[in-house]
């Protein structure tokens, strides 16, 4: 069972794993990505890249992620927690 089925809520470790995989792809594997990796600082993503990251991962979790969350997102963990909330609220 996975997120695409919508039958089971994803938990934090699964979300983080998906995020790391996507970020690794986005940064061409150049960085070691951990929970505390800073999206803008460590990965040098610009604001548009971070918004586009949301587009990429939304379908994995079958949620729409409002861009309003971004001011509260600095690290991978921040983003994962926000997504976890959205998935739970679904």
């Amino acid at each position, binding site marked *: 069972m996975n997120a695409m089925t919508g039958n089971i809520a994803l938990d934090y470790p699964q979300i983080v794993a998906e995020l790391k995989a996507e970020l690794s792809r986005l940064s061409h594997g150049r960085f070691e990505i951990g929970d505390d990796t800073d999206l803008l600082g460590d990965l040098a993503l*610009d604001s*548009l890249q971070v918004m586009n990251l949301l587009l990429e991962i939304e379908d994995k979790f079958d949620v729409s992620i*409002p*861009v309003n969350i971004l001011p509260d997102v600095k690290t991978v963990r921040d983003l994962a927690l926000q997504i976890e909330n959205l998935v739970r609220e679904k």
Partner: protein
Amino acid sequence: MGLFDKFQGLSAARRELGTLGIDPFAVEIEKILSPTEGIIHGRRTILAGTNNYLGLTFDPDCVKAAQTALAAEGTGTTGSRMANGSYANHRKLEAELAAFYGMRDAIVFSTGYQANLGMLSALAGAGDVVLLDADCHASIYDGCRLSGAEVIRFRHNNPEDLAKRMRRLGARAADTLIVVEGIYSMLGDRAPLKEIVAVKREHGGYLLVDEAHSLGVLGERGRGLVEEQEVLADADFIVGTFSKSLGGAGGFCVSDLPVLDLVRYSSRPYIFTASPSPATIASTRQALTKLAAARDLRARLRANYERLHAGLAGMGYTLGASPSPVIAVVLGDRLEALRFWNRLLQHGVYVNLMLPPATPNGVSLIRCSVSAAHTSEQIDAVCAAFADLRADAGIVAAELGTGT
């Protein structure tokens, strides 16, 4: 962290430009000669990056209307319409815009940027959802931010992606505000409006179309993409600007919905700013009359942009979209684009340099905007400059989702 530390990145970027001896974001047009020519760096230059689509900035009737209003009504209104009163001509322009679209009413804003800021921040609020195309203009993003609404992007020009997000919203979809543009300013591509309207019909919601770059350009009467794709009745709100095809400054929104009149009382970018000057309103009114009748100008504009598009495509350049007055040449990286832009200027051609993150998909663009006022000789001169650079530019065609 100090107050000014946030500028360090910008400072470094500008120093880099300084070493190249150019700053494409601080170009001074030392003298403007016509809608399509100016003096830059002391030399006569073809202006192919001005958004002056119909070339009306020097139209004698528009200039005369502005001069007459200037003498009769003064240099400025010195206040906002709500606090200090509207002039009769503000309301006349609104009535004329509403009549042009066959809609109930219009609101005039002081700039195009403020039109989006004013409409979005008033229409949407905390607890509402705005669904916007990912490539929407900064004024739309900023309006959303000011609104406090939940903002969800959908993939650019992808109605299926919009529908997916509408489905996820469930019952909330019916009260969603969907925002798209007629012609997108970066790549020059058109929205698939018919398909977007079909999604709206299925799921509900309200549609706002920003026709900033398509007003006066598309449609038999110049009403934009809504007219060209015959979906005028499905657009709940149409936003536009006076600063492109109308050759002035200001913005507007037209709508058939009675709520528009209430927007005036809740839109901070409308309330807390000075109203457009009498000369601006007068030239815009005159230009609107011309625009509606300007089939000849639209035909000339089309001939010009098709000529330039075909010329550049024929040289092997990767272009952002099918022909429109906004023609984006996709280049490899920032530095290559910067050098290319500079060499075009040295060839006597002024265009726009567009760099990430202002551009989609991280591409660097040379953006041309074509005018009906360009002569075919000027279009050929622009083509010739691109041809000269083609040989040694070392262009790497960047991957782009849209076709050419």
